[in-house]
């Protein structure tokens, strides 16, 4: 019975299909693949905001398709291929786990451009975009150092990978630039997005006496806990002020929009390329405050002199005068990384498997 049913459906579908795929090819077709839904108010929401900026910039000149909640496995390969088959000329795959699926499909569609967000492999038609998230964390460190009363900072990390560790170290550098007594303790949530676990980690930090919380996970749960307990904290990926009006000091905002717009413009002009940054694995494009790919939301819940110092740190990084990882740098168990007068290069950042001074504990192996 089912077999016949399938046959009929297949037959009907073949009849109908030509009428349903008459999309206008004059527009630039743009595809987005999301890991979760924009409702996460973190990582994916930041990409959604970027997509909305694309829509605003190009209006009817672009035709945007999105697919949300795509797991980082065979489903990703299928969805990306499907987007390519449906005539999307540029496809943004917005999570690390889409790297292999993107490369796989890119091989089959040499004329389609692929933009993978934060990975380390690329080819002729796959570019990598990434943000210097750690720059915002330095400013967070400065504010934390000036605002803390207990000198204990609680930090929630997703996984002990270089990207997260360089963020913790940048935070520590900012912290120690204004307050040598304060220390950071890290709890690993072992997830990028799990409001329950993130909230639990925040509670532990507060119970242990931390009065400033920072996070490298995606949900606003930590800030909500801070709000309830009279602690302060920083938002992640998007402005989370609405969730914690009294607790958010500021948020580092991932501003993907300008990057997307730039790449789509390049495509329209026939000048798309895999980027202008250094060609190492952190991304062809690894932009930060200076290129507006990372921005900071308004400073709030802090005195004006703190805000001024935060602004100064922001401006320093933006103009390139302030080097976050300038020597002398020592790990928290006393090993020298580099001496005075030298600065860590980008490659060294991606090799970070140690904590700098100011962080307690050890990197889990």
């Amino acid at each position, binding site marked *: *019975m089912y077999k016949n049913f399938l046959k009929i459906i297949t037959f009907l579908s073949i009849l109908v299909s030509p009428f349903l795929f008459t999309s206008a090819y004059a527009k630039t077709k743009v595809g987005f693949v999301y890991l979760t839904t924009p409702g996460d108010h973190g990582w994916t929401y930041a990409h959604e905001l970027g997509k909305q900026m694309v829509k605003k910039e190009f209006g009817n000149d672009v035709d945007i398709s*999105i697919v949300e909640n795509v797991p980082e496995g065979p489903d990703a390969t299928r969805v990306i291929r499907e987007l390519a088959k449906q005539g999307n000329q540029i496809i943004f795959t917005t999570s690390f786990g889409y790297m292999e699926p993107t490369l796989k499909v890119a091989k089959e569609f040499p004329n389609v451009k692929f933009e993978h967000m934060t990975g380390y492999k690329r080819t002729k038609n796959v570019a990598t975009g990434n943000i210097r998230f750690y720059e915002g964390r330095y400013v967070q460190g400065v504010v934390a150092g000036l605002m803390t009363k207990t000198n204990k900072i609680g930090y929630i990390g997703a996984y002990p990978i*270089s990207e997260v560790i360089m963020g913790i170290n940048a935070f520590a550098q900012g912290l120690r630039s204004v307050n040598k007594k304060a220390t950071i303790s890290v709890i690993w949530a072992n997830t990028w997005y799990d409001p329950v676990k993130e909230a639990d980690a925040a509670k532990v930090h507060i119970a242990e006496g931390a009065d400033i919380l920072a996070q490298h996970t995606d949900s606003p749960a930590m800030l909500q806990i801070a709000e309830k307990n009279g602690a302060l904290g920083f938002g992640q990926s998007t402005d989370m002020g609405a969730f914690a009006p009294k607790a958010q000091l500021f948020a580092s905002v991932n501003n993907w929009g300008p990057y997307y717009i730039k790449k789509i413009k390049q495509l329209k002009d026939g000048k798309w390329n895999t980027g202008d940054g250094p060609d190492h694995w952190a991304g062809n494009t690894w932009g930060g405050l200076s290129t507006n790919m990372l921005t900071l939301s308004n400073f709030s819940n802090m005195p004006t002199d703190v805000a001024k110092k935060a602004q100064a740190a922001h401006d320093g990084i933006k103009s390139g005068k302030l080097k976050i990882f300038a020597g002398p740098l020592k790990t928290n168990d006393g090993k020298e990384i580099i001496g005075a007068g030298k600065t860590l290069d980008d490659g060294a950042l991606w090799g970070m498997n140690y904590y700098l001074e100011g962080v307690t504990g050890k990197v889990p192996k």
Partner: protein
Amino acid sequence: MIEFTPRKIQSSFWTILSPIISITITILIGSLIFKILSYPVIESLYQVFVSPFSRPDRIADIFVKACPLIIIGLGLIFCFKANIWNIGAEGQFILGALCAGSFALLFPETKTYTLLISMFLIGFVGGAIWASIPAILKVRLNVNEILVSLMLVYVAMLFIDFIVRGPLRDPMSFGFPLSKVYPDGAIISKVDFPFIGFLGQFHYGIFIILILCPLIWFFINKTLPGFQIKIFGSSSRASEFAGFNKNKITFYVLLVSGGLSGVAGVIEVSANMGRLQPEVSFGYGFTAIIVAFLGRLNPYGVVIAGIIIATAKLGADNAQMVLGIPKVVTGIFEGMLLFFLLAGETIQKYKISIRKTN
């Protein structure tokens, strides 16, 4: 009080008609939802139900998506027929994939398919060992297998996470949790159809269903152990009177079910990922429970049920791509479809009456 009395005679007419009615009701209510949310009704329905069948490669991808669900579901038939509730297929899937994957990575240069064959065996054993934990506890100490098997899922998830971040992490992955790529001999390749070429991700692993399905049907319906399982499931006391070994049945159904979940894990990772990563299963083990019941614990039914579930998932993706319908809306569709199909089955099997309680 609502009472369910089993119907003595089940009309074959309704057996056929009930799923058709279920699907029709789903479509009707679904159309209403699309209408209310002001999406084009016909095109929405087309994307959800028909578009997954509209191109050969899309049909191929349905099978790719359904493959792990069907293989796990086929294994679960043994357990559920015997009234043993293995809820931990997800964990057994992961362990199968992990054991076979670790083995494959020991032989990085291998190009021959003997490696793949040994991986299948190791994957089966891995899944079976994981299922043997609830089995032994159940047989020896009468511990509830639902709880043990379910909780072992989380242990398995954390275990593969640890392995991929630690011992098996690719030193060239810049700290990201990925293992090295499998050697060539451990990869299940895509099927290169004559004159057509590759269709989506369609791989050779899918053909195992063609062997498993009739084999399991034969075992359940035509052999003595199959008969024992069925009797044990419908009345354990009766099976004891008949002298069947209760513990043996419990133990073996869990082992086979776990083993097949493990094999599903081997196929999924080897064909679609080619390396180990922290997440290898995306709820397949849990969805397969629905598949097993939707297929009425019949091997052929499980294949059809797997295809239906996979179609719904693919349709949801297409609907979002083309019409921008959020996954939550198409999720309602999937839920309704399952609800009505299972409700239809219940009504057809049982007479429902309302009786006043005394």
